[in-house]
């Protein structure tokens, strides 16, 4: 046992260098006065003050969370039926279906999002088709709708796969038992299938909500820069303004929000899965 444990050390060192140090640096920067050098550390809370005192940034934060929540809800509503259908397929077809879902994620997200510009354009694919029926052109690109569409499109595979995993692992004898006891299809779904697939939904939520809340290039590319989200603000502080301290402070605020969100998700997961098991 001892020998095996020592094999962990390279991993520990690696994760220390690649994960812990950068995180610590963000914390240090967040509490440091202007100047992007780590050598002269001057403790300050100014970065946090200027964030919370500025209603503009708070609004951006609210908007980011709002859009991320909508994205997550839509991903569940659209993703669940897809995952359910895939889980009911023959095993061989399931493999193909899962492949089809993962296939787009092999291509760079930025490239796929850029492609949506061409589809949603005033003279793009959708408007040309609508044009054939004498409708339009309607403005789709550079609206809030386009931003949400882009987010759902990019993140839904993670939701589908998580739900599919938990559905496919489900023991079919539960369903048979439910049927034996006289439950109809709807009742079986709500009393048995749904509660058992909750862990999948919860991990899907974490996988969708986290990237959605901090995404910056989707609102930039599809929202025409009008839907500035917190990710854009952070990017801006690092790359344009050069205020690393302020950028780090916003990142920390985000990290805390995400931690809380994850904690809540886990808590609900525990509560519900226990309840689902007993019911």
């Amino acid at each position: 046992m001892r020998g095996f444990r020592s094999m962990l050390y390279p991993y520990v060192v690696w994760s220390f260098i690649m994960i812990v140090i950068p995180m610590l640096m963000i914390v240090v920067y967040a509490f440091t006065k202007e100047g992007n050098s780590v050598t002269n550390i001057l403790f300050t809370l100014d970065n946090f003050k200027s964030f919370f005192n500025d209603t503009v940034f708070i609004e951006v934060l609210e908007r980011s969370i709002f859009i991320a929540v909508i994205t997550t809800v839509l991903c569940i509503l659209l993703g669940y039926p897809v995952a359910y259908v895939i889980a009911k397929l023959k095993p061989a077809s399931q493999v193909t279906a899962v492949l089809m879902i993962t296939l787009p994620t092999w291509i760079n997200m930025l490239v796929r999002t850029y492609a949506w510009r061409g589809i949603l354009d005033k003279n793009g694919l959708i408007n040309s088709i609508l044009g054939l029926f004498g409708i339009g052109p309607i403005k789709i690109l550079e609206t809030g709708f386009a931003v949400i569409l882009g987010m759902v499109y990019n993140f839904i595979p993670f939701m589908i796969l998580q739900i599919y995993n938990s559905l496919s692992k489900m023991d079919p004898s539960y369903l048979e038992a439910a049927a034996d006891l006289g439950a109809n299809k709807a009742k079986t779904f709500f009393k048995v299938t749904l509660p058992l697939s909750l862990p999948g939904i919860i991990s899907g939520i974490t996988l969708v909500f986290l990237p959605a809340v901090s995404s910056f290039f989707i609102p930039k590319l599809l929202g025409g820069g009008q839907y500035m989200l917190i990710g854009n603000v952070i990017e801006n502080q690092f790359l344009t303004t050069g205020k690393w301290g302020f950028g780090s402070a916003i990142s920390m605020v985000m990290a805390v929000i995400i931690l809380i969100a994850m904690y809540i998700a886990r808590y609900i997961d525990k509560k519900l899965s226990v309840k689902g098991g007993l019911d």
Partner: protein
Amino acid sequence: MKKLTALFLTSLLLITGCSSSGSPSEEGGTQTAAGDNEYSSRTLKFYNWGEYIGDDVISNFEKEYDVDVISEYFDSNEAMYTKLKAGDVYDVLVPSDYMIERLLNEDMLQPIDKSVVTNLGNLAEGVKNLDYDPDNTYSVPYFWGTVGIVYNKNNVPLEELESEGYNILKNEKYKGNIYMYDSERDSFMVALKALGYSMNTENEDEINEAYEWLREQHKTMEPSYVTDEVIDSMANGNKDLAVVYSGDAAYILSENEDMGYFTPSEGTNLWSDAMVIPKNAENPELANEFINYILTYDPSYSNSEAVGYASSNAEVLADLSGEDGLYYNNEAYLPRTGYENDEIFHDNETLRVMLSDLWSKVKAE
């Protein structure tokens, strides 16, 4: 440690070079003519704007000098500066005027070796000896141009542009039909010029007025804030008005004949991007050689032809805008000179931070 941060900041990093055309003379190849030159098998690190160079320029240079060129790309001066400050080493950079000024102020550049860069005489009249580097001691211009408005000639009458100037961007007739350029410098240039001020103003009242101008525009006009997306979008005719860099405009005009380019008489940003050698360059001799090579006719022609920005090479500029040239009659290609309200951007730290803050607020609202 700073490198780690840089790693996280790196958004786009492409490595070219090392292709088949790289170095044919590893072993025994030293007898070839190429292998004899003093730079043989060295590596040049070139940090340039994305989509800013002709197709064969790098590979021809590699062949001619038997060297490898590693190209990396940036999409804003500030992103480039951040990487440079984080300790990354490059041999040649292509920053803009005000950024060169900043790098000079921070003593980060080394002088051009004029005994190697002998082609400085090729530079076009309007782009040499500019006031950020009066004798081209540290910088050699690459491209130059203006910022103006690309408009759809079918939907926007030229008279309206002439009478309203930049204020046409607040004309509610074009609500939801406008692309602004997503950078504080360019947006504030538009607002300050529209109000009749200098774009290098340090007067806070004037800056706040410009901020209000932009805020009001954001609220009433629903403009989209884009950068490179504007090129394809305007070439497809998505909107009627767009604030665009002249070189991108030249491309748009050559793709879509409905589009025109207009530079308001209120003035514009006369900008230039120039090649410089950072102090910490590993191969400064090769960097000078490279700069000299870019100044010659063929690479300059290839760059300007491919990208659409005005060449710094006088002969290329004349040929491309001349009667048989690719950009003949393209009003966006040749930068205008001799307008007294046209200015060059200067580096100013207080202004930089202030504009950047205000600009995030305009967009965040």
